């Protein structure tokens, strides 16, 4: 059976409220390694308190951990970011020695263009130069964790036709041990904002490369954010999984022959008492679907 996991967030309220769900209803955990680091005064990256807490939890309940990075910036073209990336890779290696990640993914895009800390994954031009750079980044990661991959990120603007992205991803993940993390809310959100059919995007993907599926929710931007009054769908992970995403999941998971996990994502600071039952139900629903 395909395991169903949940993200561990470095948030005391999240962890307290979801403690029993995390312990009893999830088959594995996903962590964002960078959120488990702190920076020493000399710039060194050290584990923070959640690093130890998550490691202890995983050992206690004997559940595997996968890593989903948020900031390696696999698409940075400039060498101005090389030193930072080397420092992060060294920290990731130390984390992997502790957690023994089953696989490691990061986001498609560039979050540190020219070494700038934009933090948000931003689109990269879908060129051969970008493909080569991202493949090299995956190869660098693969020296640490043998199974690696990229997630189809959510982008709120595009450099080119977003329906060409599946082929771009196909070129990126064609190497051995290189995988695709298919985030269905990202597909739903991008399709909604850019005005295309999410099924068309999914049909173009290399589904045999999918190692993991992400399920999550989001919300719409307030109309007053933009002078145009337009509202865009945000991948904010602050609400339950919408029915449209469940429908995509129902159609796609069977078409992913190498799928090894389905992860429910939820952002820190967004979980209240009534959400706990919803999140448990979402885990159970995902498991029931992949059990059929």
């Amino acid at each position: 059976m395909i395991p169903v996991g949940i993200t561990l967030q470095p948030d005391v309220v999240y962890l307290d409220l979801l403690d029993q769900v995390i312990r009893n209803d999830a088959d594995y955990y996903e962590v964002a390694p960078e959120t488990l680091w702190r920076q020493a005064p000399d710039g060194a990256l050290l584990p923070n308190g959640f690093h130890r807490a998550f490691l202890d939890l995983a050992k206690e309940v004997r559940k595997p951990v996968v890593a989903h990075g948020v900031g390696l910036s696999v698409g940075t073209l400039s060498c101005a970011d090389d030193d930072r990336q080397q420092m992060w890779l060294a920290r990731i290696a130390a984390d992997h020695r502790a957690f023994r990640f089953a696989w490691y993914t990061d986001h498609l895009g560039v979050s540190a263009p020219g070494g700038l800390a934009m933090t948000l994954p931003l689109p990269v031009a879908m060129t051969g130069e970008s493909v080569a750079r991202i493949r090299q980044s995956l190869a660098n990661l693969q020296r640490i964790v043998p199974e690696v991959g990229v997630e189809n990120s959510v982008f709120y603007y595009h450099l080119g036709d977003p329906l060409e992205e599946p082929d771009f991803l196909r070129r990126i993940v064609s190497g051995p041990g290189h995988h695709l993390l298919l985030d269905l809310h990202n597909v739903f959100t991008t399709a909604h904002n850019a005005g295309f059919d999410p099924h068309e995007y999914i049909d173009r993907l290399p589904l045999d490369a999918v190692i993991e599926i992400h399920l999550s929710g989001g919300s719409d931007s307030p109309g007053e954010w933009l002078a145009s009054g337009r509202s865009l769908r945000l991948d904010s992970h602050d609400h339950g999984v919408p029915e449209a995403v469940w429908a995509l999941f129902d159609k796609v998971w069977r078409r992913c022959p190498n799928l090894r996990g389905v992860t429910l994502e939820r952002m820190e600071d967004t979980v209240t008492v009534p959400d706990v039952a919803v999140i448990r139900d979402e885990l159970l629903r995902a498991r029931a679907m992949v059990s059929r």
Partner: protein
Amino acid sequence: MTAGETVQRLLATALTAADPGAAIATAADDPRLSDDDRRMIAAIDRDGFRISAMLVARLRLERLLHGHPAVDDWLARDPERFTEVFRHYHASVLPEAFFPPEEARAFDAWLSATGTAIPSM
């Protein structure tokens, strides 16, 4: 710098500008770009670009608040004034800090350089 690097740098700079929409229009006319890259940038959804710019600013604000308790307190006491100061900082200083302590140091250096003081309680 390759053409791809130039595009990435131009877009990053536009995203942190005081008016990202105007900045992206200017970037689309940059003479260092090829015709194809100019067309690609000109076709960017301006609303999507502005939302991305807001999210980049929010992530930076969160980084600063995590690294600087006095700033967190300033935001709580006078959100309007603090927001004005933060906007000025964000548009003036490129984001080079990946972690809260670095961001706090960069903010303090900018406050000092601009003669701005964190209001005392």
